[in-house]
C-alpha cells in the first residue's frame, strides 16, 4: 500500500477522464485516491438517494408511530396503556418472552457446544435444521401447533380428556413464540465458537478442570457478548411476534391477547390513537433493542477478531 503510494503515477486521475477533475484536491497522494473514488457530484447524489430511501421507508414509519400515539394528547395516551386489557397484554407478552428466551438460550448454548467443539457426522444437516424456523412463514408456524394440540390435532383428544388447553390459551402462545425465536441465540454462538476453536477448553481439561468449570470459567467469558447479542435479538422477536401467535391465540381480550394482538384489536375497532399508543411501547422497545444491538455488536466483532487472530 505504502509502496504504491510512493510510485510516480500522478496521471492516474487523468486516465479516468473527467472524473478526477470533479474533486479539487491539492496534494498528490489524495489525487491518487481520486482515481479510485467517485466524483463529488456522484457521491452527493448516492448519499442523498440512500438517505432519502431510508427516511421514506424507515424513519417516517417510526416517527409516525410516536406522532399518532400522542396526537390526541397525553391523557388519551396514558389511558390507553394503563387500561386493564393493555396491562394484561403486557403481562402475557412478558410471560411468553420470559419463558421462550431462557429456553432458547439453553438450547443455543447446547447446540453451539456440540457443533463448534466436536467433529461429527450430520453436522451440516443439523445446522440447516436449526435455521428452519426462520424460513417458515409465521402463519404456518402457528398452524403446525394447531395440528398437534388443536381439537382435531394429534393430542387434541388426550388434552380434552384431561381438561388441558394449549391452543387458544397461554401455552400455545408460549410454544409459538419459542418456535419463531428458536434459532437466534444458536446462530450467533455457533460461528463465534467455531472461530474460537477448542484449544483453551482442552488445556483446561488437561489441567484437571471439570466440564462445568471449563464452561463457566473458559467458554462463557469468551462468548458472553455474542450470547447477549443473541438474547437481545431473541427478546425483540418474542415481544413482537404477530402471525404465529395470532393463529394460536384466539384473540380473547384480556386473556390471550399479546401486545401486538392487542394493537390489532384496537385498530380493528377504529381506536387508532389507543392502537398507536400501545404500538409506541413496542416501538420504544425496538429503539432500545437497536441501541443495545449497536453497542454489543462492537464487542462481538472484537470477540471474533480475537478468535481470528489466535486460531
Amino acid at each position, binding site marked *: 500500500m505504502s509502496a504504491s503510494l510512493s510510485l510516480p503515477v500522478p496521471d492516474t486521475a487523468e486516465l479516468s477522464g473527467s472524473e478526477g477533475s470533479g474533486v479539487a484536491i491539492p496534494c498528490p497522494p489524495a489525487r491518487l485516491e481520486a482515481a479510485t473514488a467517485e466524483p463529488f457530484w456522484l457521491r452527493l447524489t448516492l448519499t442523498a438517494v440512500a438517505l432519502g430511501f*431510508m427516511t*421514506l*421507508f424507515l424513519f417516517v414509519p417510526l416517527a409516525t408511530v410516536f406522532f399518532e400515539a400522542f396526537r390526541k394528547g397525553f391523557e388519551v395516551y396514558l389511558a390507553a396503556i394503563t387500561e386493564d386489557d393493555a396491562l394484561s397484554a403486557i403481562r402475557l407478552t412478558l410471560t411468553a418472552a420470559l419463558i421462550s428466551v431462557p429456553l432458547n438460550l439453553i438450547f443455543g448454548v447446547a447446540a453451539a457446544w456440540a457443533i463448534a467443539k466436536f467433529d461429527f457426522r450430520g453436522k451440516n444437516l443439523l445446522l440447516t435444521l436449526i435455521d428452519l424456523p426462520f*424460513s417458515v412463514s409465521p402463519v404456518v408456524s402457528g398452524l403446525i401447533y394447531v395440528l398437534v394440540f388443536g381439537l382435531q390435532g394429534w393430542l387434541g383428544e388426550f388434552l380434552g380428556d384431561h381438561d388441558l388447553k394449549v391452543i387458544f390459551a397461554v401455552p400455545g402462545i408460549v410454544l409459538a413464540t419459542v418456535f419463531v425465536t428458536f434459532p437466534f441465540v444458536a446462530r450467533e454462538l455457533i460461528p463465534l465458537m467455531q472461530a474460537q476453536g477448542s484449544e483453551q477448553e482442552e488445556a483446561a481439561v488437561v489441567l484437571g478442570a471439570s466440564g462445568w468449570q471449563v464452561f463457566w470459567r473458559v467458554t462463557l467469558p469468551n462468548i458472553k457478548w455474542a450470547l447477549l447479542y443473541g438474547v437481545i435479538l431473541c427478546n425483540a422477536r418474542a415481544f413482537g411476534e404477530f402471525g404465529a401467535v395470532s393463529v394460536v391465540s384466539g384473540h380473547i381480550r384480556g386473556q390471550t391477547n399479546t401486545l401486538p394482538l392487542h394493537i390489532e384489536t384496537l385498530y380493528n375497532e377504529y381506536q387508532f390513537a389507543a392502537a398507536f399508543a400501545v404500538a409506541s411501547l413496542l416501538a420504544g422497545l425496538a429503539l432500545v433493542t437497536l441501541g443495545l444491538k449497536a453497542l454489543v455488536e462492537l464487542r462481538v466483532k472484537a470477540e471474533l477478531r480475537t478468535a481470528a487472530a489466535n486460531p
Partner: protein
Amino acid sequence: MLFSRTLLKRHSVLPGFDLALGFTLLYLSLIVLLPLSAAFLKTASAGWEHIWASVSSPRVVASYQLTFGASLAAATLNALFGLIITWVLVRYPFPGKRLVDALVDLPFALPTAVAGIALTAIYADNGVIGQWLPFKVSFTPLGVFVAMVFIGLPFVVRTLQPVLEDINHELEEAAATLGATRWQTFRLVILPALLPALLTGFALAFARALGEYGSIIFIAGNMPMVSEITPLLIITKLEQYDVTGATAIAVVMLLIAFVLLLGINLLQAWARRRQGLAEGSDR
C-alpha cells in the same frame, strides 16, 4: 454414550458431547421437527381431491400471483436500493453515520404489527405521504409491495456490508492504473465480487416477503382476488374450520420455503468461495 460412539469422527478430550447433542436433538425434534411433520402427515392423510381443490381454487391462485409478484418486485427494489445504501454506508463519511447504520435494522426490531399500522397511516389518502400521491397505496396491491419493501431492506444491506468492507482496494487501484473508468471498475471488478452476496440478500428478502403476514394485512385491504396474500388465506380457512385446506396451502408454502432455503445455502457457499478467493489473493 450413544452419540459419541456412532457419530463422532474424531475423539475429543472435551466432555459434554452426548448431553449437548442429545438435548439439541430432543429440543429440535419437539419444537420444530414433530410439529412441522404434522403438516405433511395431515396433508398426506387427507383426500387428494380436497387438497387439490384447496390449493388450486381461483382465489388461492390469485393470492399466489399477488404474493409472488409483490415479493419479487419488493426484493428487486431492495437489491437496488440496498446496494446504494450499503455503498454509501461503507465508503462515504457523513455526520450521523452510526445512527443511520443502526436504523437499517429497524425492520428486524420493530414488530410487524406496529410497522403495519404505521405504513397504513402514512399511505392512506390523508396520510403524510399518501396525500401527495396521485394513486392509492393503502388497501391496494401496491400497499402489499410497500410493506414487503420495508421488511426486506435489512437483509440486502446486512448481507452485502461485510463483503463490500472486505473488497481488496488494491484491485480497484490496479483497474484505475490500467485505465479503467470508475464505472468500468465498478461493473467489471466490484460488482462481480459483490454478486453472490447481492443475490443472497435478494433471495433472503424474497423469502421473508413471501411468508410475511403482520405488516401486510393492515395495509393490504384484503380484498379477495385483488389484495389477499397467501398466508392470510391459511387463516381464513382455519377460521372456517377447514383445517385440511389450510394445511394444504401451508404445505405448498413450506415446500417453496424449503426450495428457497436450499437455494440460499448454495448461494452462500458460492459467496464464501468467492470471498475466500478474494482474501487468498490479498495475502
